[in-house]
Each structure stands twice: as structure tokens, then as C-alpha cells.
């Protein structure tokens, strides 16, 4: 690939935000070079490419950086017009998709993270909020799909599918660590069938870290939030989590 057209993605294997971008790149069939970042020891390149947030994902295309997963997805959709569109053509449908994507990001994700990072009464409260938001999303999906079955495969995943996937693709690990079933087919039939559908998509399956690794990640996030003074534990666990990198280490737990 010519240097000018080269696509690079700076990411971290456990990051759902990075996963969003990888799903999009793979759906569109865009070849890219992946660069794993150590988020405790951020590379000079990352700091140069994302000076405002210093976070992953960062997409580099034609030597220029694009930051923030949603911005990257829109960029990908506008730049590579071959391959399935990530947003509908119709402006009103686009607005609805953007609205629900924003909802997933700001209202669902934030509250799921709150559940991960809290315990006792605070956690119970956060769980209640997540269920309320899921109910709203279930209603929203009915409106979005207008009674049609939304069939998902590698050919038609869009930004809302991708965002939901990055949040609830790990729902089984969330269930195990948090002891709460968010993706409940009885409470949320539409959402549950949707989540099942996109976790079966080949591209998503290939990118999803194994269940055991995800469990460790969620346990680590929880530990870090609930015992901030246990710095030694954090360092050890942090090292361990970082060591569980993508594919070139053996897939075993000690």
C-alpha cells in the first residue's frame, strides 16, 4: 500500500472504543496496520496524534490523525464509499441513528460503567437506571425498525449496531462479574435478539476477546474503582491485564 494511503489504527485490545473502529474497518474491507498502545506508557506518537485527549482509538490516514470513535466511523464512511454504508442515506433516518447512538454512548454506557465501578446501594441505584435506559432503547428500536426485522450481517452493520456491539458484545462477561443480566430476552426481546445477531457476525466474532479475558478486564475495572488505595494490587493486575494482549501471547490464565 502506498505510504500516502496507508491506514494505521492505534488501539488497546480491551478497549470497546477501539473495537468499534476495527469492526468498521473490517466491514468496509479496509486494510490497516494495528499498533497496540500501552496506556500506562503512552507512546510519543499517540501524544502527538491525540494531544487533546491522549486516548485510543486514533486512526491515521494519509499521515493525518482522526480521533474519537464516532468521528472516525463517520470519516471512514465518507472516505471509503465502497462497501456497506455505516449510516443510512435518508437524512431523517440518519438523524434517528445518530440520536440513538448518542443515547447508547451518553446514557447507557455511562451507567453500565457506573454499575461496574460501584457497590451496595449505589450499585443497586445504577442498575435500576440501566434497566430504565434499556427499556427506553427497546421502545426506540421498535420505532427505528418500524416492525421490520432488522437483519444484521457483515454486509449491513451500521454505527448504531457497532456502538451497541461494543457495549453489549461482552454482556456475558458483564453478567458473570456483576451478577446482573442486562440482555434479558424476556424484558428486552428486540434488543436481545439484536445483540445475539451481531455477536454472531464473523467480523465481530473474530475481534471479540475471549470470554475469560473479558471477565478479567471487568474484574480489574471494578477492583480499580472500589479499592483505589490498593495500588500494589492495581499495578500487579494492571500489568497482568496489559500482558493479556491480542494474539501473540498464549491464551491461558494462571
Amino acid at each position, binding site marked *: 500500500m502506498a505510504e500516502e494511503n496507508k491506514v494505521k489504527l492505534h488501539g488497546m485490545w480491551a478497549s470497546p472504543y477501539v473495537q468499534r473502529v476495527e469492526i468498521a474497518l473490517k466491514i468496509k474491507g479496509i486494510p490497516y496496520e494495528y499498533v497496540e498502545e500501552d496506556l500506562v506508557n503512552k507512546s510519543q506518537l499517540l501524544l502527538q496524534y491525540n*494531544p*487533546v485527549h491522549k486516548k485510543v482509538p486514533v486512526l491515521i*490516514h*494519509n499521515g*493525518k490523525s*482522526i*480521533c*474519537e470513535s*464516532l*468521528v*472516525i466511523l*463517520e*470519516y471512514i464512511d*465518507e*472516505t471509503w464509499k465502497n462497501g456497506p454504508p455505516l449510516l443510512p442515506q435518508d*437524512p*431523517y433516518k*440518519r*438523524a434517528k441513528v*445518530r*440520536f440513538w447512538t*448518542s*443515547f447508547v454512548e451518553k446514557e447507557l454506557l455511562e451507567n453500565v460503567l457506573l454499575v461496574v465501578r460501584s457497590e451496595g446501594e449505589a450499585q443497586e441505584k445504577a442498575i435500576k437506571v440501566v434497566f430504565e435506559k434499556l427499556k*427506553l432503547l427497546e421502545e*426506540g428500536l421498535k420505532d427505528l425498525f418500524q416492525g421490520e426485522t432488522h437483519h444484521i450481517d457483515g454486509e449491513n452493520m451500521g454505527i448504531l449496531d457497532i456502538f451497541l456491539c461494543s457495549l453489549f458484545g461482552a454482556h456475558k462477561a458483564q453478567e458473570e462479574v456483576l451478577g446482573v443480566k442486562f440482555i434479558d430476552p424476556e424484558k428486552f426481546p428486540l434488543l436481545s435478539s439484536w445483540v445475539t445477531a451481531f455477536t454472531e457476525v464473523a467480523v465481530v466474532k473474530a475481534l471479540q476477546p475471549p470470554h475469560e479475558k473479558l471477565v478479567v478486564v471487568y474484574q480489574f475495572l471494578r477492583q480499580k474503582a472500589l479499592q483505589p488505595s490498593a495500588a500494589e494490587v492495581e499495578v500487579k493486575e494492571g500489568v497482568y491485564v496489559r500482558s493479556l494482549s491480542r494474539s501473540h501471547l498464549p491464551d491461558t490464565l494462571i
Partner: protein
Amino acid sequence: MEEVKLIGTWPSPFSYRVIWALKLKGIPYEYIEEDLSNKSPMLLQYNPLHKKIPVLVHGGKPICESAVILQYIEDVWPQNPLLPNDPHERAVARFWVQFAENKVPCIWRLFRTTGGEEQEKAKKESMEMLRALEEHGLRDKKFFGGDKIGIADIAFGQVAHWLEMIEDLVGVKLIEAHTFPHLHAWTKNFKQVPIIKENLPDYGEMLMYFKRARDNFLASRGPGM
């Protein structure tokens, strides 16, 4: 062209984002002032999820969330574009709109403080946010959009007009010419753009409105905070 309606409130910066976009593109619309203390059936019908303004109604179909509305307006009416042509520059503009959504709310957290640690924290966050705008967003450009205003300038409108009001009420000064030279100049230049100048809430009225709102909020919170 199908009928365009905007449901908004006169003190809200989010309402103005939509007004500015519609006026910059020359789109005729009907403005409906909403009373948020007594929400209309129309608002509850058009925005059942959040029950908030602004709501754009185009041909009877509602669009909610100001950032979503701005993109919708750009998609439907491409004249006088709010986004640049170049894909990378578009991504940069969208990055700053997202930054406005995620980071600018800290000025409203500052608005709700009276002092102490809470105020110091909010002040620090606000200064960091402004520093990012000065050094990375604006740099030495006249506007975030370059020579003329674009979607990012519209998104940061709060910083140009409402922040001054917050500074007055809380008694802190954040943007000064010597600490944020480009941003300071931008607040003046932005408000000189004719469409913006003609479509801003009166400063005095706004100050009175938000002082009352702040007093009510602080009173309901109780003493000792």
C-alpha cells in the same frame, strides 16, 4: 419545501445553535417558545424521551438533540455549508463538536458552585477545557471553521456569550486577553458575525434570568454546601 418549526427557549444556548444554523442557511422556520415549567403536549409528543428543547420539526417529523439537529440541517440543506469539504477537516470539525458536547458542560457545573473545593474543581476543569480550545482547537485561526464560522463555532457559542454571564454570577474570570489571546479574540469576532449578532439573547435579561435560576438552585440545595 416542507414546513420547519423550532421549539426552543430564549435563554438556552442549545436553542440558539439551531437558530444560527437555520439563519446561516436562509431556511425559513416558525419559532415556538416553550415554557419548561409547564411543558406543552406538543413537546411531550415530539420529544417523549427527554422532554427537552431544542426540537426541530420538519414536515411534521421531530429531530432532537442540538448536535444531531445541526447535522440534520447540514444533510438536508447543503447551501452555506457548516462543514468543510475535505474529509479530514470535516473529521476535525466533528471532533470539536463532540468536545463541545462532552467538555463544555463543566462551565455549567461551575455555574452551580458557590465556593470551596467544588468550585475549585469546576474552575480547573473549565480552564483545562478552554486551554484545549486555545492551543489545539482555535490556534491562530480567526474561527474554528477558518475564515468563516462553521459547525464547531456554533457548538462553542456558549463559550462566547453564556460563559461571560457565568463568570459574572459566580465571580470568577476565566477568559482574559493575556491568558487566552486567541479565544478572547474569537468571543468578540464570533459575536460580530451579523447572523450571530442579530440572534443572541439580551445580556442583561439573560443575567437576570440565570441569576434567578442559580439563586433558586442554591436555595433548594440548602445551607452548608
